[in-house]
């Protein structure tokens, strides 16, 4: 019995190790490759034989405009997140706390919009934005991004608001608060962790957006980071600068990985809030 238990324990460890390796190995490979010298980029050793930061220097070189792309990404993803969060907070509160006609239909519609193929929105919007002269502007990327970030934020926040005890708010209202005051003084402070989590998830979704940013820009200085790295080319157009691409990939990913490490518990709670009751 003990032998069998021991055996099962080791099998479990092996399983855990397999899951961790599965998830991290490709990311590790990107990191290692980015730290190799250009001359030994095709080496397959698990650690770089000569540690070098030349790829990072190449990426951050002003000629690549990559820092500008990072800045564009921060602006677009940041504004999208803030706008989506503001609108979603009000809507999610109504969804979780108020009783009104067609509530289920409205919530279903909002969630359904997030499942629209982005391309079927982008094609007509591109035509419209060409007419507005909005091509290569931030708003041309922010407005379409609302189509998937807003439903995501509403969905997440609704789940959070539903989990909060209704009694606190009712007690505040019995004590003479209006619904608005109860919302501001009780709900918002209590919901802060949920709103923070929703902000992270929304930000990551907006940061990772590619199709809209690709379609709405054609000037390198307005491209977001994911588009910029997909078009990354080195000084010579005859060799693909794999090392620089990996370095750029690490730079785009590291802020997200740090967020994930810091707030993993919350993010998992947010992602699974609607799925499992």
């Amino acid at each position, binding site marked *: 019995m003990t032998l069998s238990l021991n055996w099962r324990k080791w099998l479990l460890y092996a399983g855990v190790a397999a899951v961790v390796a599965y998830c991290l190995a490709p990311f590790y490979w990107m990191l290692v490759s980015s730290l190799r010298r250009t001359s030994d980029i095709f080496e397959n050793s698990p650690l770089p034989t000569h540690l070098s930061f030349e790829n990072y220097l190449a990426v951050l070189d002003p000629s690549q405009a990559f820092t500008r792309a990072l800045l564009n990404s921060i602006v677009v993803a940041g504004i999208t997140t803030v706008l989506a969060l503001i609108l979603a907070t009000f809507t999610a509160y109504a969804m979780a706390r108020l009783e009104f006609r067609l509530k289920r239909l409205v919530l279903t519609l909002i969630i359904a919009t997030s499942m629209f193929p982005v*391309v079927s929105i982008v094609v007509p919007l591109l035509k419209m934005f060409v007419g507005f002269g909005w091509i290569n502007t931030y708003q041309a990327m922010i407005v379409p991004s609302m189509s998937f970030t807003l439903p995501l934020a509403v969905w997440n926040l609704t789940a959070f608001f539903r989990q909060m005890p209704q009694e606190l708010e009712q007690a505040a209202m019995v004590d003479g608060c209006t619904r608005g005051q109860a919302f501001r003084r009780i709900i918002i402070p209590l919901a802060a962790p949920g709103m923070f989590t929703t902000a992270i998830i929304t930000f990551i979704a907006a940061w990772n957006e590619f199709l809209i940013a690709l379609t709405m820009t054609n000037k390198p200085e307005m491209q977001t*980071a994911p588009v910029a790295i*997909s078009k990354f080319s080195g000084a010579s157009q005859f060799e693909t600068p794999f090392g620089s691409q990996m370095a750029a990939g690490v730079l785009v990913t590291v802020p997200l990985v740090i967020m994930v490490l810091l707030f993993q518990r919350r993010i998992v709670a947010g992602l699974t809030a609607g799925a499992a009751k």
Partner: protein
Amino acid sequence: MVKTHNPPGSAEGRHDDTAGRVYGVARGSARGSSAVPPASAARRRRKPRATAGSGRLAALLVSPTLLVLTIVVLYPTIVALKDSLFGTPGLNPKTGFVNETDPFVGAQNYTDIFGAAGERFWNAFWNTSFLTVTTVGMETVIGVAMALIMNRAFQGRALVRASILVPWAIPTAVTGLLWRWIFNSNGIANALIGQQVLWTTEGFHAKVAVIIADVWKTAPFIGLLVLAGLQVINKEVYEAAKIDGAGAVRQFWSITLPLVKPALMVAVLFRTLDALRMFDLPYILIGAQKESVETLSMLAQDQAANVRFGPAAAYAVILFLYVFLIALAFVRLLGANVVGDDDAAPKRRRRWLPVRRPAEVAA
């Protein structure tokens, strides 16, 4: 339900009253007290103070979101429908100049699918379907396996959770680049299998490359959602099954899978709809206009980028309908509850697929 004792003119009063009653019904059934007549349950639980004026307030709170979604989703969809009926401006036979406006072509962009432009469309259609079925299938199996392992792991849980979020957090564009490097002809993938496969060139191996990269990125996400479903299963159910002599395999098929089904269905639905609109990964990993991996999204975007808005809109509309039908099938046939809310829905679902209760299973 809509008819109330209020005169038709008093809109405000009518709102509140119906809203209260609808909610009352929902709450009654949500708490599993379906034996109690909903109306009386509603009356008993109604808190007049808490529901006063909520109809108007709700409209005020919800309308900004609905307005934004109307502008960025509904309106473009309608425009896409309209655009799909127009062609690209050609030469005017009388003047010899290029026409300024798009000519109306009716359903020609749609009928072209069965004619001249058909080959590329159907290729994209089958690519989309093939990639969706294969990736979602593999992701589900791997994701469930991951969730089962994570559910048992008590040490190192934080490490597992953090690492499982990494593929999810990496932008798809970076994932594409990363796997293009792994699948380079002199890259690590060929070194590991000891062969020289030109993964990122046209051919079936390009599909395999996209599938592997996509499964890597999203299987952990399914694992995460399924894990959440596993964690709410009462451990006593397993104890009872063990006493009844059910083995591990039997426990998985008879207890774990039926009980985790709601969470799994939502995860699979989200992944399926996501896979149907796949764009970034094949675009970056293999490239644009590659026959082996061109999806409907890529085809529509390519047409739009080349100012052929009519066909682009037609492809986008077809993709939209495809996604819509699949979503409808999921919700209707498989009972995926996306809203995450019990309100009134189970009544309709039960007709399609009886939900097995834990008690029945354990017995």
